[in-house]
C-alpha cells in the first residue's frame, strides 16, 4: 500500500506542477535559510575532540586584582602566569598536563632565492601531542627530556612541511627559524580543531599553528609572544626575568584527568598550591580555582558568536513563514482535489487511509523541499563564506549529520504543514462531490 500512496503522491504532485513547485520552493527556501545558519551554529558549538572532551580540563587560577573587577567581574582570569604554569608543570599531578602559548617565528628556507616568511608557532610541551590526540604523518612529538634540555626540536604542520620540504618525510632534517637551527622530529597529519578549543583566548576559530616548539626553549631564547598578555599590576623592575616573575597572564594550561577522582584530587592539589602561594603574599583574592572540561570551557568563553545566534533565530522564524505559506498552498491543493477524495471515499477508502495518503504526499513534498533546500543551504554557506572570508572557512561545510538534519527538518516541517490540510481533506464527505462533474 505504501508504494501505492507514493504513486498517488507523485501523480498529485505532477497534476499541479506550478503549485507543487511553489510548495517545494517555499520549503526549500526555508530549509536553505535555516540550515545554513544551523550549520554555522552547529560547527561553532561542536565538540572538537569528542573522544575525550570530558577528560580534558582547562585550569583557571584566580591570581587576579583584589580591588578591580575584570571584564567578567570577579571571575578567575582566562590564562595563567608563568610562575604558576611552571609550578603546575613541575608538580606533574595530572595524568598529562600542558602549558602553552602562541608565538610567531620567522622561518628561513634553504636556498638563496627563497624569501624568509613568518610562521604561527605554539610553544608547548611533549604531552601536547598525545593529550590532544594529534596524528602524525611522519615521526612523532618530542619527549620529556627534550622539554627539560630545551632541545631545538620542532613539529611541523602538514602545510608547512609541504611548503618547506615539498611534502617529503622531513624527520631528522633541519629548519632555520629566528636565526636558530631546529631539528624536525615530526610532521602532523591534517589537523583541524573547530573551535580551536585549546586556545580560545587568541581566537576560537583561528587555524591551528604551523609549527610546535618546546616551551622552555622559547622562554630561554625569549622568542616573540604573539598572544594576549594581560597584567593587573606592573612587574617588579624591567627586563624579561621580571616579566616572567610578574602577575601577567599569557599561558593556557590544560590537564588530562581521566576520572572524577583524578579531577577531585587535582582540584585539591590546585587549592593547596594556591593556599601555599597566599602564604607568600600572592593570590590576594579569595580561593576561586576552576577546572572546566572542553565543552564547559567553550560555554564559559562564549565561543558561539552572537551574530550567528541572532541569524539562527531569525532564520527559524523565516522557516515558520515558509511553513505558513506551505500550509496555505497544501490546503488549496488538497481541497482542490475534493472530487478525487470524495470518489475514493465512495469506493471504500477509509478516513485513515486518506490521511496516510495525504501525509505521504506532504512528506514527498517535504523531501523535495529538503533536497533543493540542501542545495540552497550549500549556496547560502558559500555566500556566508564569501561575505565573512577566512574567519568562517571552517564553519561552512556540511557533514552527514547536517545533511540528515536538513532532510529530517524538511520532512518534519512538511508533515507539520500537511497536518491541517490533510485533516480538512479527510473530512470531505464521500457524497459531496460526486453529483456534478
Amino acid at each position, binding site marked *: 500500500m505504501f508504494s501505492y500512496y507514493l504513486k498517488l503522491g507523485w501523480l498529485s504532485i505532477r497534476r499541479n506542477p506550478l503549485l507543487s513547485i511553489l510548495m517545494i520552493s517555499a520549503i526549500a527556501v526555508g530549509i536553505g535559510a535555516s540550515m545554513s545558519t544551523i550549520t554555522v551554529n552547529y560547527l561553532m558549538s561542536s565538540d572538537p575532540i569528542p573522544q575525550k572532551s570530558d577528560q580534558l580540563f582547562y585550569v583557571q587560577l584566580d591570581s587576579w586584582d583584589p580591588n578591580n573587577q575584570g571584564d567578567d567581574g570577579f571571575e578567575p582570569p582566562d590564562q595563567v602566569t608563568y610562575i604558576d604554569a611552571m609550578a603546575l608543570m613541575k608538580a606533574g599531578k595530572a595524568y598529562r598536563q600542558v602549558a602553552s602559548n602562541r608565538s610567531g617565528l620567522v622561518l628561513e628556507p634553504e636556498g638563496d632565492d627563497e624569501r624568509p616568511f613568518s610562521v604561527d608557532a605554539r610553544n608547548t610541551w611533549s604531552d601536547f601531542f598525545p593529550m590532544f590526540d594529534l596524528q602524525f604523518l611522519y615521526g612523532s612529538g618530542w619527549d620529556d627530556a627534550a622539554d627539560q634540555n630545551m632541545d631545538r626540536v620542532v613539529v611541523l604542520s602538514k602545510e608547512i612541511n609541504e611548503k618547506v620540504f615539498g611534502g617529503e618525510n622531513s624527520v631528522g632534517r633541519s629548519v632555520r627559524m629566528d636565526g636558530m637551527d631546529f631539528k624536525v622530529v615530526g610532521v602532523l597529519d591534517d589537523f583541524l580543531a573547530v573551535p580551536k578549543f585549546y586556545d580560545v583566548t587568541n581566537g576560537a576559530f583561528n587555524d591551528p599553528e604551523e609549527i610546535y616548539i618546546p616551551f622552555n626553549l622559547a622562554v630561554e631564547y625569549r622568542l616573540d609572544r604573539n598572544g594576549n598578555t594581560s597584567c593587573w599590576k606592573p612587574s617588579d623592575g624591567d627586563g624579561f626575568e621580571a616579566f616572567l616573575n610578574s602577575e601577567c597572564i599569557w599561558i593556557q594550561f590544560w590537564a588530562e584527568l581521566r576520572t572524577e577522582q583524578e579531577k577531585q584530587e587535582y582540584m585539591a592539589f590546585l587549592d593547596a598550591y594556591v593556599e601555599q602561594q597566599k602564604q607568600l603574599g600572592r593570590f590576594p583574592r579569595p580561593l576561586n580555582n576552576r577546572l572546566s572540561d572542553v565543552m564547559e570551557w567553550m560555554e564559559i568563553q562564549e565561543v558561539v558568536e552572537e551574530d550567528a545566534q541572532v541569524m539562527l533565530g531569525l532564520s527559524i522564524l523565516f522557516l515558520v513563514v515558509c511553513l505558513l505559506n506551505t500550509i496555505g498552498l497544501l490546503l488549496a491543493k488538497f481541497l482542490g482535489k475534493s472530487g478525487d477524495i470524495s470518489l*475514493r*471515499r465512495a469506493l*471504500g477508502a*477509509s478516513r485513515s487511509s486518506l490521511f496516510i495518503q495525504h501525509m505521504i504526499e506532504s512528506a514527498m513534498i517535504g523531501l523535495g523541499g529538503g533536497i533543493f533546500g540542501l542545495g540552497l543551504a550549500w549556496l547560502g554557506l558559500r555566500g556566508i563564506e564569501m561575505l565573512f572570508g577566512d574567519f568562517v572557512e571552517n564553519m561552512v561545510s556540511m557533514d552527514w549529520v547536517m545533511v540528515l538534519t536538513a532532510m529530517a527538518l524538511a520532512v518534519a516541517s512538511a508533515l507539520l504543514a500537511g497536518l491541517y490540510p490533510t485533516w480538512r481533506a479527510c473530512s470531505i464527505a*464521500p*457524497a459531496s462531490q460526486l453529483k456534478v*462533474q
Partner: protein
Amino acid sequence: MLSMQNISMVYRTDLVETHALREFSLEVEEGDFISVTGPSGSGKTTFLNIAGLLEQFTGGRYELDGRDVSSLSDAESSAVRNEKIGFVFQSFNLIPDLNLFDNVDVPLRYRGFNTAERKRRIERVLDTVGLASRMKHLPSQLSGGQQQRVAIARALAGEPRFLLADEPTGNLDSHMAMSVMELIAEINRDGTTIVMVTHDPTLAEMADRNVHIRDGQVSDITTDTQFAKVATG
C-alpha cells in the same frame, strides 16, 4: 438485502431545516433490479447516498444484509462500501490521471488484495465490459460510453452484491445509453442486486420494479409485469 424503515434525513442550517427524506421505507430483495424515479429535489440522490453509506441519516433504521449500519464506524462503513457496494455515477468520476487499469484498481487497493489477485480481477472486469485491449489508455482517450463502461468495471471489480447507479446514462447519447443499460441488466442477471436512479421512464421500465419518490417519501412502487399499485408503509 436492504431494509429501510422510517428513514428521515434533515439538513439543518442556521435558518432553515430541509427534510430531504421523511418516513422513508423500502425493502430490496437479493437479486432485485430496482429503478428509482422522481422529480428534481424529491430526495432520489439523498436516498442513494444513504443506501450507499455515503451519508449518515438523521432518524429511522437501515439494515444492509441484516446488519444495522447506523452504528458502523468510519473504517467499518468504508469497508462495507468497498466490499459489498459498487457505485456508478452519472459523470463517471474516473480519475483523469490514471489509466483504465489503475482506475479499476482503486477500490481493490483499499480491499488489500495482492498484486496477482488485483491484476486477475481488473483484466476480467475490463474484459466483461469489452475494454480489455485498452487497459493502458487514459479516460480522456475514450468515448463517454466507454468511460461509463470503465466506471461499471471499477464498480464490479470488487464483486459487490449491491450496485448503486446514479443516472448512469445521463451523460450519454441514446445509442450508448442502451448498450450501458444492457450491460447493467446482464450484471443483474448474474445475481447482483441493482438500484438505479434515473429520470428516464424508458430506462426505469427495464428494471424489475420502479420506486417513485416524491417529497422525500416513496409515493408508489410499480412492478413491470403487473404495473399494480402497492401501498407503502
